[in-house]
């Protein structure tokens, strides 16, 4: 159990910075996910916390104790690796017992703790096997078993379920979250899968290009992205972006596109705060913040042409051509529009976003 503070941390590989001036505080007992695409510096960050990578600059603190110079074995963390890193010459029992053995725990205690962990993870029947006799999901459980068998200050999970098949992954998401809640240990979980981060974490740190983009709860990250990059990275299907003109019309500010002119809500005008009141901006709207219909529901509806329909089981995704760009709308499978037909889109203005056309930061 520990509060982890990452303070002005930099990581350089030669002349290339992999992590740039990272500042994050993970509260005690929380489940924190570091989310980002490959090469964003998230694994480097985790490896610096584990002690496997030198910290080029800055400090990492556990409960206000600086741990920069501690060897991995003295940091009291437990880590689950992306490819499990089980010891092939040891049985499952010995794999899980390894952290205890290395600390000179008594045999009776080891047996008790290992069987306890194995029962929790439902691998008690596999204890005598060796790693090469296990399936991917079982290996992953053994790796988790090795992490939870003692009570470390901190769990570090490095994409632990990235190599499992989709169904097992969904199952393990729930299990890991449940496990962390029960143990109450602080967890840092690195992933490139936004769905994993959104569904499991208490807090998400979104990283891109070595920089922290946004820190917040899953709903903050999803509903109030601070910039266009976060908005585009989080959410599946991805957010639609349209380049529009901002025009002042009386007291209103209007978002203007070839196919539509829609005024912002009064609160949103205030959020623009005078900035970019005239000029171009990027409008962002998620596929489920719009409705599509074949008849014109109101004067404000946007007219477009259906490009293609994709049936996704319970939902249907309609791709609509608007002048030179396309946007995707989520609707029900009963939607009967055909490609090439004219349709009408209604945007839920509470849920749209406007980003600066230059640096991409969000006005709202």
């Amino acid at each position, binding site marked *: 159990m520990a509060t982890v503070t990452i303070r002005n941390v930099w990581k350089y590989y030669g002349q290339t910075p992999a992590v740039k001036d990272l500042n994050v505080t993970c509260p005690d007992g929380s489940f924190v996910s570091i989310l980002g695409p490959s090469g964003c510096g998230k694994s480097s960050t985790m490896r610096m916390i584990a002690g496997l990578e030198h910290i080029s600059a800055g400090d990492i603190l556990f409960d206000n104790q600086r741990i920069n110079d501690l060897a991995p074995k003295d940091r009291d963390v*437990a880590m689950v690796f992306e490819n499990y890193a089980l010891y092939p*010459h040891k049985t499952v029992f010995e794999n899980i017992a390894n952290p205890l053995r290395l600390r000179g725990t008594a045999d009776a205690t080891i047996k008790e703790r290992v069987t306890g962990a194995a029962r929790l993870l439902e691998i008690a029947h596999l204890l005598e096997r060796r790693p090469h006799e296990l399936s991917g999901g079982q290996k992953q459980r053994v790796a988790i078993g090795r992490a939870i068998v003692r009570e470390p200050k901190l769990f570090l999970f490095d994409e632990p379920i990235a190599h499992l098949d989709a169904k097992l992954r969904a199952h393990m998401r729930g299990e890991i979250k449940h496990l962390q809640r029960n143990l109450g240990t602080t967890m840092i979980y690195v992933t490139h899968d936004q769905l994993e981060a959104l569904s499991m974490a208490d807090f998400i740190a979104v990283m891109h290009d070595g920089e922290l983009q946004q820190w917040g709860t899953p709903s903050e990250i999803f509903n109030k992205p601070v910039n266009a990059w976060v908005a585009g990275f989080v959410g599946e299907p991805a957010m639609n972006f349209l380049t529009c003109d901002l025009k002042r019309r009386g007291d209103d500010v209007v978002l203007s596109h070839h196919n539509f002119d829609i005024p912002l809500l009064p609160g949103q005008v205030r959020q623009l705060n005078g900035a970019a009141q005239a000029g171009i901006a990027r409008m962002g709207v998620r596929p489920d913040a719009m409705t599509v219909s074949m008849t014109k529901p109101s004067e404000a509806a946007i007219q477009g042409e259906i490009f293609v329909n994709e049936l996704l089981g319970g939902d249907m995704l309609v791709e609509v051509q608007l002048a030179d760009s396309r946007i995707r709308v989520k609707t029900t499978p009963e939607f009967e529009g055909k490609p090439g037909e004219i349709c009408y889109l209604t945007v839920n203005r509470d849920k749209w976003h406007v980003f600066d056309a230059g640096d991409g930061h969000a006005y709202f």
Partner: protein
Amino acid sequence: MTETLTGIDMSVRAPEDRFRARKVSTEVEARPLSAALPPPGRLNPAARKAYYFYLMAPAIALLAFISLYPFFWLIVMAFQKGDMGAVEWVGFKNFIDLASDDRFLSGWVLLFRYSAMCLFLQVSIGVLLAVVVNGSRYERFLVTALLMPMMMAPAVAGLLWLFLYNGTFGWYHWIFHSLGLLGSGSILSSAKTAMYAIVLVDVWQWTPLITLIALAGLKRVPRDQIEANMVDGASPFRNFFAIVLPNLYPVLLIAVLLRFMDNFRFIDHILVLTGGGPANATKILPVYLFEVAFKFFDLGRGAAIALVLLVVTIILGKILVGVFDRPTAGGR
């Protein structure tokens, strides 16, 4: 191959070329000899076996000529009283005589002592060197430097060390003498030190081989296992014995197997340095075998010793493979 490909490429580009290519292919009548046999894909298992046999037959014939024929002659000779002239069948007499031959028995003891010392030193020093060299900034240079003793012919290495050990002007002789570690005699003339002297030469020459093999093995030790063990709480020292060494076992097996068989066969440097002396102190079995067969020309007896040596080598090799090849020592 390249020309054929170029031809095809051109035929795609220009239609005239395509016609020409077709015409050529119909006119070819001489097919390669192997075309007389049907390709193996269409054969039933038995016919396929025969097909593979035909393919291997030339190699087997060559092998039989240079290797199997002399081997069978060795077996035949072991049952004969053979010097250069008259040949006489003596049955198992050669083998029975060996049981009461003191030199033969002490040759075994010396051989095992020699081989055990060589293997222990070579493997431990070799692995240690590999760990030091691995990941060093000067790795390439160090590997090249380490290779140099191996490149030397064993007899030349023996001569080199003969000079270093020499009782009059030998450098090592001088050092040991100055340190008071040596009595009045020279290194090679004392029965106490001669064995260590020849072991040292073998270690000097062949430890680099173990280092090379271990270095290759170190490169494939999975990094994540080492890191996992570090996070689990292991010191670098424990990490080496818990993760690195078990992952090295398969390659070390090959190294030990090679070196142990070499110890049973290579006697060049011993012949140069001591010739088995002083007072038979370094007369390991292969040296004795050489002496019996090619100095006394008792070829029958020599063949019998060689045969016993061969059988023991095979048995020991088998045991070694069995010991190392347990599933505990395997890779993933």
